[in-house]
C-alpha cells in the first residue's frame, strides 16, 4: 500500500549524522502511552456505577468483574508479544509501533463504546483484547530497537523505555480523572467520553514515536569507544525457534515471573497495609500518596538498576534483587511495628525500585545470553511470564488473605504472612538466577554465509 510505504523497515534506516539520542524519546512516546494500562483501575469505581451514576445500580458491573479487563489486557500483552515478536524483527519497529498505536488507541475507543452501551464483552474486547495486543507490540518494538542503537549500554537504553511504561500511570491516572471531571454530567460518569478521548490522544502521541523512530544502518557502531567488559558483550546469536528448548530461557522466565508475582503481591497490599499498620496516622488520602511514591520508585528503579547492570552485570543485579528483596519483604512487618512512617515508606520504595528494575534489566540479560539477532522476539516470548504473574500474583495474594482471615488471623497479621510467602518466592528466584550459565554452543545460530 503506497501511502503506508513510510512504515517499511527500509524507510526507517537512519541517515548519516542521525543522533541515536533521538531514539529514546520515540521509545518513550510509546511506553509512556501504553503504561496507562497500570492506571486502568482509576476507571474501576466510575465503571461500577455507570448506570446508577451516583451509586451502583443493581445492573451495574461489579468491581470484581471490571478487574478482569486489566487481567485480559496483560494476558494479551504477553500473547501478542509472543506471537508477533518474530514479525516485528522482520517488519521493523515503525510498522510495529504504528500497529501498536492503532490497537491501543482503537482499543480504548472500542472499550469506550462498550462502556457507553454498557456491554461488558465490548469493553473486554476493546481494552482487554485489542488494547492488549497494542500493549504487547508497543512494549517490545522500542526495546529491541534501542538495544541496536546502544550496544555499549543496553541496560541503560532499555531502562529508559521501560521506565516510561512504569511512569505511564502517572500521566494516565490524573489525565483520566481530569477528563472524567470535564465530561461528567448528572446522568453520566464521563468514563466513556474520557476513554474515547484518551484513545485519540494516545494514538496521536504514539504517532510521534512512529515518525521519529529509526533503525541503525547495517554495520553501524557508536562513535564512542565500546568498553569490552562482560556486561557489554552480547552472547552468540540464538534463533528464537530454539529458545523454548534451552534451560536458560526457562530460568529467566522463572526469574521474571517470580519477581513480578512478589511485586504484585506487595503492590496490591500497599494501600490497605499502611492504613492498618499506622491506623489513626495514615488515612485514605495519605495512602494514595504512598501509592504515588511507590509508582515513582518503580519508575526510577527501572532506569537506575538497568543502568547499574551495565556496570556490574545482569546476574549480580538480579542476585541483589532477590537477596536484598527477600530480606526487605520479610522485614516490612517488623519495620511497620517500629512506628516509623518514613522508614516504612523508604523500605517499600526500595522494594519497588527492584520490582521495576526486574522488568527493565531482563531485555539486556536476554541479549547477553541469546545475542541480538532475535532478542525482540525472544523478549516477546519471555513476557508470557509477566502474563502468568499478572494472573497468579493477585490470585495467590487474595487466596492467602482469605484463607488466613477465615482462620481468624487479624488483617495486619494476614498482610505480614503474605509478605513472608513472597519472600520465599524471591529465594526461589535467587536460586533460578544463580543457576543461569552461558548457552551451550550447540544452540548457537550458524554464522551467515559471507557474500563475496
Amino acid at each position: 500500500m503506497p501511502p503506508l510505504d513510510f512504515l517499511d523497515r527500509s524507510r526507517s534506516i537512519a541517515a548519516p549524522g542521525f543522533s541515536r539520542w533521538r531514539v529514546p524519546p520515540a521509545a518513550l512516546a510509546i511506553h509512556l502511552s501504553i503504561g496507562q494500562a497500570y492506571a486502568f483501575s482509576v476507571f474501576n469505581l466510575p465503571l461500577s456505577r455507570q448506570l446508577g451514576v451516583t451509586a451502583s445500580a443493581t445492573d451495574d458491573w461489579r468491581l470484581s468483574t471490571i478487574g478482569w479487563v486489566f487481567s485480559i489486557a496483560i494476558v494479551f500483552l504477553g500473547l501478542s508479544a509472543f506471537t508477533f515478536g518474530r514479525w516485528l524483527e522482520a517488519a521493523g519497529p515503525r510498522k510495529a509501533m504504528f500497529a501498536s498505536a492503532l490497537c491501543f488507541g482503537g482499543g480504548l475507543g472500542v472499550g469506550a463504546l462498550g462502556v457507553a452501551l454498557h456491554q461488558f464483552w465490548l469493553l473486554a474486547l476493546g481494552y482487554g483484547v485489542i488494547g492488549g495486543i497494542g500493549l504487547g507490540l508497543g512494549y517490545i518494538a522500542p526495546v529491541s530497537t534501542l538495544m541496536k542503537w546502544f550496544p555499549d549500554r543496553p541496560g541503560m537504553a532499555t531502562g529508559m523505555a521501560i521506565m516510561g511504561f512504569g511512569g505511564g500511570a502517572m500521566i494516565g491516572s490524573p489525565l483520566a480523572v481530569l477528563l472524567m471531571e470535564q465530561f461528567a454530567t448528572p446522568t453520566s460518569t464521563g468514563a466513556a467520553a474520557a476513554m474515547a478521548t484518551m484513545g485519540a490522544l494516545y494514538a496521536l502521541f504514539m504517532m510521534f514515536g512512529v515518525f521519529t523512530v529509526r533503525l541503525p544502518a547495517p554495520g553501524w557502531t557508536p562513535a564512542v569507544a565500546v568498553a569490552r567488559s562482560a556486561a557489554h558483550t552480547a552472547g552468540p546469536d540464538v534463533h528464537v525457534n530454539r529458545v523454548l528448548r534451552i534451560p536458560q530461557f526457562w530460568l529467566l522466565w522463572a526469574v521474571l515471573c517470580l519477581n513480578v508475582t512478589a511485586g504484585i503481591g506487595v503492590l496490591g497490599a500497599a494501600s490497605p497495609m499502611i492504613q492498618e499498620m499506622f491506623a489513626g496516622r495514615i488515612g485514605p488520602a495519605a495512602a494514595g500518596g504512598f501509592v504515588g511514591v511507590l509508582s515513582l520508585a518503580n519508575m526510577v528503579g527501572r532506569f537506575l538498576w538497568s543502568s547499574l547492570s551495565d556496570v556490574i552485570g545482569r546476574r549480580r543485579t538480579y542476585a541483589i534483587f532477590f537477596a536484598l528483596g527477600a530480606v526487605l519483604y520479610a522485614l516490612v512487618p517488623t519495620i511497620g511495628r517500629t512506628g516509623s512512617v518514613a522508614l516504612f515508606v523508604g523500605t517499600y520504595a526500595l522494594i519497588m525500585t527492584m520490582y521495576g528494575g526486574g522488568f527493565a534489566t531482563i531485555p539486556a540479560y536476554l541479549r547477553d545470553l541469546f545475542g541480538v539477532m532475535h532478542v525482540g522476539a525472544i523478549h516477546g516470548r519471555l513476557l508470557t511470564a509477566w502474563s502468568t504473574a499478572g494472573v497468579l500474583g493477585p490470585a495467590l495474594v487474595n487466596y492467602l488473605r482469605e484463607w488466613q482471615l477465615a482462620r481468624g488471623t487479624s488483617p495486619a497479621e494476614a498482610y505480614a504472612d503474605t509478605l513472608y510467602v513472597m519472600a520465599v518466592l524471591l529465594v526461589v528466584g535467587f536460586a533460578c538466577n544463580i543457576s543461569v550459565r552461558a548457552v551451550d554452543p550447540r544452540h548457537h545460530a550458524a554464522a551467515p554465509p559471507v557474500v563475496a
Partner: protein
Amino acid sequence: MSPGGERVRVALSWLVVLVPAAWGVAQVVVKSAALFR
C-alpha cells in the same frame, strides 16, 4: 544534516516526551505530600 540542527532535533524530541512526564511526576509529588503532613 548539520550537527547543530541535529542537536536541536534531539532537544525538541526530548521536550515532547518530558513535558507530559514532568506533569505526571508533579501530580504524584503533590499527592504524596499528604503522606508526611
